[in-house]
């Protein structure tokens, strides 16, 4: 994407620079209109956009949550300035500011808020999704390997915004089972 953008920028700059070269072209408005406006303005812009859009939509399609028997469901509730997480497979258990997930399995995070708008973001696992009072948004995340991942709030929410963070811990299968048995690792 960045390479493409650089190329387009370079193209426009070259066109601009060439406008300054000394020359004596006979003015031919009609031909120029066809070349600049229809050719470049409409044709060029549309081609680039079509390509980009196709790319965006296919990538977006791949990010869509797909049903799978493996999926783990968790809940994330945002509050100024903390997060609490609940687990479908471990009812009643709530962890503060730490989300436990199994590695290698898709996880659906149901996100909501009890006060203002927040946003759930674990940069290395997925894009962000807002926590909005009165609504529940579901985000699919998946950690390929066990480990810890930093999570952030990504919607301004007042004075504690800068330090409103959490941690995601992805467990291997054994640890995850231990966690589900209530033996907090």
């Amino acid at each position, binding site marked *: 994407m960045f390479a493409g953008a650089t190329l*387009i*920028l370079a193209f426009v700059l070259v066109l601009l620079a060439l406008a300054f070269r000394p020359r004596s072209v006979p003015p031919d408005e009609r031909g120029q209109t066809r070349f600049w406006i229809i050719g470049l303005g409409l044709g060029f812009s549309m081609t680039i956009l079509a390509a980009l859009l196709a790319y965006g939509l296919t990538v977006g399609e791949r990010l869509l949550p797909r049903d799978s028997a493996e999926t783990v469901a968790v809940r994330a509730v945002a509050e100024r300035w903390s997060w609490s997480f609940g687990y479908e497979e471990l009812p009643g258990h709530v962890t503060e500011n730490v989300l436990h997930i199994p590695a290698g399995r898709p996880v659906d995070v149901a996100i909501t808020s009890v006060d203002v708008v927040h946003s759930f973001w674990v*940069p290395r696992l997925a894009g962000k999704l807002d926590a909005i009072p009165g609504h529940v948004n579901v985000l699919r995340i998946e950690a390929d390997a066990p480990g810890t991942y930093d999570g952030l709030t990504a919607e301004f929410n007042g*004075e504690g915004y800068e330090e409103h963070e959490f941690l995601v811990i992805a467990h291997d299968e054994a640890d995850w089972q231990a966690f589900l048995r209530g033996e907090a690792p």
Partner: protein
Amino acid sequence: MSALRRHRRLTAIWASEPGWKGWFSTVNHTDVGRMFLATSFFFFLVGGILAMLIRAQLATPHSAFAGPEVYNQLFTMHGTIMMFLFAIPTFEGLAIYLLPKMLGTRDLAYPRLTAYGYWCYFFGGGMLLFSLLAGIAPDGGWFMYPPLTGPIYSPGINTDFWLIGITFVEISAICAAVEFCVSILRYRAPGMSLDKMPIFAWYALVTSLMILTGFPPLILGSVLLEVERAFGLPFFQAELGGDSLLWQHLFWLFGHPEVYIIFLPAAGVISTVIPVMCRTTLLGYGWVVAAAVALAFLSFGLWVHHMFTTGIPHMGLAFFSAASTLVAVPTGVQVFAWIGTMWKGRPELHLPMLHILGFFVTFVMGGLTGVMVAIVPFDWQAHDTAFVTAHLHYVLFGGFVFPILAAIYYWLPLFTGRTRFFKLGELAFGLIFVGFHGTFLAMHWVGLLGQRRRIETYDAEAGWTTINLVSSVSSFVLAIGLAMVLLDVLLHFVVAVRGRRNPWHAGSLEWAMPAPPPAYNFASLPVVETRDPVSSDPHLAVRLARGEGWLADPALDRRETLTVEPSSGTPEYMVIYPGNTRLPIVFAAITGLFFLSLLIKVYWLTPIALAGIATVGWRWVWSLAQPVDLGPQEAGRGERLPVSGETDRAPGWWGSAFLLAADATFFGSLLFGYAFLWTVAPGWPPPELLEPSLLELGVGLAGALVASIGMRIAIRGNRSRGTGVAGLAVALTGTAAAALAVASLMIRVPAPAGHAYDATLFVLGGYALFHAALAGLMQTFLIVRVRRGFTSPARRAEFPIVCLWADYLALVTILVLVVAHLPGWLA
């Protein structure tokens, strides 16, 4: 009459009062345009200082310079000032100053309204400035998302300053937009058909139409949020059936078009300046106009791309993502038309051209990153990081500040009649260019590394320290560059040498007058036959000064201009303007009193202020009284034209039509909010519905129809017998019935503070009641007018205007009553 004598005579008629006292009573567009520009650049300075404080804070990790309470005010006020108090008013000021000159006329459609708009901006901006200095400035970010900005999480007065101050300032934007629409469509030189209009006027027209449809959703949102904060009517609280997403929709319904409202005038400047700098004409004039119109339409379909992370359904994402990238097409058409124009001509590197090149580089980069964030998967990562901040500055600074700098240097010779002496501007351009890209390229980068926007500090371990330092140092280079521009302009006023008229050899009409421009612009109005009248007739200025155009005879000591048929440009009627008056500043001060009473919650003052507004408004319109029939007037060149008061479609009618377009958008947004809450918000349907009442509905609908029919009887009565009192009385009765019905609705709403449903119905009723009061006031006014003999079959212009407002009242009353009763019936 010699040119000099005509000049003296016209100056005596048009000039403002001498000295600083004249500022308070001037209604002349050249004066008010200058005042607008001076004030908006002052706010640019303030916003810039805030930006420097922000960058100073972010320069190093764990900076102790500002804590979150202060930092949150800094970035909120920086964004707010730049968007609302700098960018939009700069467009208004530039257009106020330039449009009549470019269109070949003597003033805008409503000179007193121009001044009123300025004073609203001045007082509203003053409120926000005060909050900043007092340390109680808004701190919820420039888009003010509730519930963070709601009564529970922001109990202080900070947020109220934003909601009330910005709404006050928006009045000036709406006034200006109405005025530009009417002026561009009707106040042009004879012969200037639409296709001969200067390209800047096209852009100003499109921008104005966008303001009329873009700002009402924001004004509605601000009103609702302020009502929630002040009186507890819940619109955005999920527990009570409200939804914070409603604010996001209303805000971005405004916010996205806002970006184009800022960019299009700048594009108008570019389309004007490039051909002149390249000694040629704009390539593909028709295409460029079409592209601007397309951009305006598309931009209203895009607001949702600011909400990609709010959990919009997948199909919606795909649609808005596609639509968002689509705006790049009309933008591409314009960019390539400009480059094609440069190829067509011979570009010369004058200072304005340098800034245009700065625009090209910056804006194209901003457009490319914009297309990236329109792609959903990318936006999910970049959203709310410094990447987005950097992108938006590439678009706003590239797309607005560079073109405005070009505009300053391009029109400065007209503004002052002098030429630059010191060559500070070139150096300044270099500093600005380097400084800008240093600042914001670095911010793209830290954004991709994960630095969020709106954080007041960060850890040294994050590894962002060097990049932030580079960004901050560059921002100071940028600031020095901008300061040099300011110095250059000031020096220009003080020491520079007198210049030639039309130094760039431009073809548009603003150069066919002495520089600096006289108060009356043109001693006689030109006849336009081509798109570049000054190029086709280099002696035009002299001929106009000699009185060879329209309205050359100042014998009657009136401020005269004429209007044309919108598309062909054939003269239609003559307009006689009111002279200097303090009414605008008084009116704005009383409007300010109204807002102030809400801000400091001194509610006994509110009705007094409202009564004051009604009284001054009455006097405002009353002073346009025309005691006798004038008949067709001498308009020069052997032609006679009727005066505006003796026509069916006077300026007031056109202005009302455009104002009502904005009003209808406001109403439409309110209905949208009602439907949105009903379908999307949690906690619906409400616990208790409004009891349907046939009586209320019947009285309301009948009243609405009678008000509208009564006005038609009045028009007919006036035309045949010269009196319309009977019809007016009928209309007034109908209006009263409509008012009664909607007032009853408001009273019967079960619990306005209990649920968003009730709150919405209450506001809907209030909206209709307000319009009934307005229509009633107008009808009463007209009755008094008829009684005092200020109307006649010829002097008929005020009847159709009131009819328009009565019709709108009828529409609103019917819709409000129906949508309020329907659910109860269906249940």
